[in-house]
């Protein structure tokens, strides 16, 4: 799949933003005054700029407001609905904390709950797609949640939670790769089932593409760039996460923010790979081998 930078920023930034808001809603840490203002500012900025970035990806942006309407069936619509609900729910919490000091009402807890649901919905936009075997695995939503919550914990300087979250994130990340690597070749769809040709003994290969040039499908879904370096890039993700794990263990909590940089670095590369390594079954019609 085409690794669009707007979608990479969207999923990483809004994940961290909602992850941070999750901790603020729980009163971890308990803030007031300017500290509360800047914390909520960062949380809102990450979440909202991520959502704005996803709008950049749209072909027909004027209709973006209609995306809230189909929550009954569409994960993308649910993501929009829960994102707005979360941001609206946190507004009174933020205002009371900034002016009146720590005030952890049930509304804050509700906001934290909604923030988690929002990250889950973001992941399910991709995790639901049977057409992309690498994404269509149970770990996908947990990987997104682990990135969001761990990132949020680091920004919120919750060192103990970060110390638990980072190894969990590393394990989920490696698990997602291992299962994902098998998903393409073990998937039931083949060039034979895609075309219905070949019977029991024949193998099907593409003789001629339907067109000599590129088209929307080939640039969007039969995308091959960058897989060459995927091993090295995976190594960089693991290195970044390991640095964070070590940092969370050995460095004093106040310095936890130092480890945000390798985490952001790992998250961006991981998310780039998430798109670039994913293969779409339509590739079977364009000569992609199993």
């Amino acid at each position, binding site marked *: *799949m085409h690794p669009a930078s707007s979608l990479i920023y969207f999923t990483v930034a809004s994940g961290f933003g909602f992850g941070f808001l999750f901790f603020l809603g729980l009163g971890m840490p308990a803030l007031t005054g300017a500290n509360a203002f800047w914390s909520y500012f960062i949380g809102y900025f990450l979440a909202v700029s991520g959502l704005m970035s996803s709008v950049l*990806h*749209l*072909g*027909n*942006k*004027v*209709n*973006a407001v*209609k*995306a*809230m*309407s*189909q929550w*009954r*069936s*569409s*994960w*993308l*619509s649910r993501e*929009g609905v829960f994102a707005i609900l979360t941001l609206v729910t946190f507004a009174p919490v933020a205002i009371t904390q900034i002016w009146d000091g720590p005030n952890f009402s049930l509304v804050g807890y509700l906001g934290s709950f909604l923030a988690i649901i929002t990250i889950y919905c973001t992941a399910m*936009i991709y995790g*639901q*797609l*049977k*057409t*992309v075997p690498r994404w269509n695995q149970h770990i996908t939503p947990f990987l997104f949640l682990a990135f969001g919550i761990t990132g949020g914990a680091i920004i919120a300087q919750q060192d103990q939670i970060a110390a638990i979250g980072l190894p969990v994130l590393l394990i989920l990340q490696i698990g997602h790769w291992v299962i994902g690597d098998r998903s393409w070749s073990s*998937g*039931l*769809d083949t*060039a034979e*089932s*895609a*075309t*219905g*040709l*070949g019977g029991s*003994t*024949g*193998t*099907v*290969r*593409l*003789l*001629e*593409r*339907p*067109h000599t*040039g*590129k*088209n*929307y*499908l080939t640039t*969007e*879904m039969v995308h091959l760039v960058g897989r060459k370096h995927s091993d090295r890039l995976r190594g960089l993700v693991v290195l970044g996460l390991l640095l964070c794990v070590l940092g969370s263990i050995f460095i004093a909590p106040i310095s936890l923010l130092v480890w945000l940089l390798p985490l952001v670095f790992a998250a961006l590369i991981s998310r780039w790979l998430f798109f670039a390594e994913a293969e*779409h*079954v*339509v590739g079977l*019609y*364009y000569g992609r081998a199993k």
Partner: protein
Amino acid sequence: MTTLPNSTDKKLGLVIDLDTCVGCHACVISCKEWNTSNYGAPLSDADAYGEDPSGTFLNRVHTFEVMRPGKPAEVTHFPKSCLHCEDAPCVTVCPTGASYKREEDGIVLVDEADCMGCGLCAWSCPYGAREMDLSAGVMKKCTLCIDRIYNENIPEEDRVPSCVRTCPAGARHFGDLGDPTSDVSLLVEARGGFDLMPDQGTRPVNKYLPPRQKIEASDAPVEAIAADAKGFFAWVDKALSSF
């Protein structure tokens, strides 16, 4: 509404005969011509006369080769467009309600006035049946020529999808696949019509008819067909052999 109807009154769709298709791409061109000038935004092209042309099409013809051990390759031309699935994932993923499946005839359509061009429906389609028009920024797909099949302003024989009307080989058939007595249903029954990628669980309405069994080819040397000549040729044979 992007929830799918429980059932549709009709299941209009295409039956494509892979035995008959000659791969001329006439259906591709007639589809483009009809649909660029009728329902919805035109099907744009980019760099059409330049070095790197690309464009939006609702129907494309691939060509596959089936290889069997010890047998000559079999070439099959393979037209592909929207299959108007009964369990269409492209409809349920749509966040704006632009994608829908019609209850009366099962046609899957995009209401371009609602489409925001996110492309998720194209990602959810295993068949590559949807293409975003990069000029208009909205999703395009086969409408089963909804503006022809019910159009009382055109002669009755033209009230079929453009691709069906234009196919010179008669490889494309249009009808109600929900009616077991319709011509298309009988054809599917007689020829063993099948679904594409059944494991995706989309339950396509469109069916494909398999290529018929080819005459068994042999790689043995050709045998002489006139080993014992008669009359004039016998005299020529005898005369030439005497040198």
